[in-house]
């Protein structure tokens, strides 16, 4: 289904138009427009300070916008906050669990904030603890949980009201690789159940794993929009050859490599050469007698897209 032929506006879960948030002279979010369709997994990709979390807080109605239009499930979160949030699950960037309550009580009390009855919440809390693989920790104090456990509990908590839209702000930051994969698996399951996911991340692999469609944000603006594969296709080549000559020589070698690839990026520690045939390109480099210390060929990623669009890397 092409996006152009599909009237997103009529069915949008989230509709933002010229959304703006200023702090004094500084524009944290600088006039962004986007729509999120039901059941979609939508990503906001960008470096720290790009305006992703600010956007998330405006969606939840806990931060007032400076100007622009914002509708979540057809309502303005600024004037009907509790009603909008009744259908949202919010997973903040850093865990804000209730440290005065135990793990299971965190889920139950949180559910009470949504006006849910205990008869529903007690079995639901057990179900969510199992989902988060924390059944053993039901009566543990929050402070005794590991970082990964707290993260999973925070996500489980965000599901207690069976939200239609789940807002995840940097869901896997600070998690080890195994914990990340467990979490991604859980999020896939939710998506299969029809939950709309809105994810902010500065990890390109996470965006590629989780998002059907994403916007790339930088300095409060949207600089590109599309599916991960279409963005890569549009803004990068199929493959990338990475070569390292040592930090002293990288810059000096660029001129000799310039004509080999359509595009070259020089990073402090390596040179990226963009081409459809990475191996062929690398062979040519060697044929010229330019022997890099290390080299590798990989497929283009969203990291390359971001580099192309902003001239900077995602993680600085």
């Amino acid at each position, binding site marked *: 289904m092409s996006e152009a032929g599909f009237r997103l506006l009529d069915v949008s879960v989230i509709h933002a138009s010229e959304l703006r948030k200023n702090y004094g002279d500084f524009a944290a979010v600088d006039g962004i427009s986007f729509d999120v369709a039901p059941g979609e997994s939508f990503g906001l990709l960008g470096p720290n300070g790009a305006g992703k979390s600010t956007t998330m807080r405006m969606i939840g109605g806990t931060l007032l916008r400076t100007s622009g239009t914002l509708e979540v499930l057809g309502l303005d979160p600024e004037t009907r906050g509790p009603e909008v949030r009744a259908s*949202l699950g919010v997973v903040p960037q850093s865990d804000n669990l209730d440290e005065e309550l135990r793990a299971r009580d965190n889920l139950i009390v949180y559910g009470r904030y949504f006006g849910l009855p205990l008869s529903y919440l007690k079995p639901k809390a057990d179900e969510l603890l199992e989902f988060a693989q924390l059944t053993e920790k039901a009566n543990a104090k929050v402070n005794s949980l590991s970082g990964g456990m707290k993260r999973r509990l925070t996500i489980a908590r965000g599901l207690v009201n069976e939200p*239609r839209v789940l807002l995840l702000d940097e869901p896997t930051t600070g998690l080890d690789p195994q914990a990340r994969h467990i979490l991604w698996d859980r999020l896939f399951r939710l998506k299969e159940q029809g939950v709309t996911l809105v994810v902010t991340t500065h990890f390109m692999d996470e965006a590629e794993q989780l998002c059907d469609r994403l916007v790339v944000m930088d300095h409060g603006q949207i600089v590109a929009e599309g599916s991960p594969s279409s963005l890569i296709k549009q803004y990068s080549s199929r493959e990338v050859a990475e070569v390292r000559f040592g930090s002293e020589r990288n810059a000096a070698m660029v001129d000799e490599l310039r004509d080999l690839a359509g595009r070259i990026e020089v990073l402090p520690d390596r040179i990226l050469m963009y081409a459809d045939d990475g191996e062929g390109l690398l062979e040519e480099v060697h044929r010229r007698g330019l022997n890099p210390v290390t080299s590798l060929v990989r497929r283009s990623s969203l990291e390359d897209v971001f580099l192309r669009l902003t001239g900077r890397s995602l993680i600085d």
Partner: protein
Amino acid sequence: MSAIMGPTLERLRRRPPTVAALYAGNARAVIERGFRVIRNANWAVIATGFFEPVFYLLAMGVGMGALVGGVPGPDGRPISYAMYIAPALLATSAMNGAIYDGVHNVFFKLKYGRLYEGMLATALGPMDVALGEIFMALFRGFLYAVGFLAVLGVMGLVTSWWALAMLPVALLIALGFASLGMAATSYMKGFQQLDLVPFVLLPMFLFSATLYPITVYPGWVQALIMALPLWHGVELMRQLSVGYFDGRTAVHILYFVAMSVIGVTVVTLRLRKLFLR
């Protein structure tokens, strides 16, 4: 799509537009959380708030009272020194408890526990959180007041059934201080400002005719003290303890009613500034 939120959504849709952004009619959930925490809490910590005025009463009232002897009561008849300061200590205790909950507790939960951030990501509004927290502050104040009044009863320091009215009056005093304190908290940025609180409260406790009559001061100092809230609380409690009332009684009550109305109004207007930052 889930149906579980149906009843809540139904209720939220019926709210008038004036409160739709701020209030979900579910302060009950915040109060429930408070009781759950109290149930798990260390009772020794809670009990300290009860013992403080009792220690003052024993040290000053009974100890120093032996030196002081009798003092004129609200109606002019002599009463023991312990009887004189006991109602004042009850008023002070209501103030301290309310400030502890409305200022220190709120500020800590806001800045460090980030408790309110979690609450406000749900179907609650900032008004629900404020009402719930004020209720918990009053509940704690009420517990202390009941305990202290029981001690006064046992020690024979109250002589009128009117003393029972000290309980609701303690709540009124607590409401005034908790709401105004919470309003002040909305302007606070760091711990340095929090340090100003005892700087205000301690002199107010010492000079508000708590330990000796206000008549020892020159006129302008008296006027200054009478403008401050604690003096009204102290005088009101003192009158109740012996069941003597005059024209000033109504003034004292009105003072706290006005203070509470102003406090609650400012808190309401500053809700976003208080909780959403």
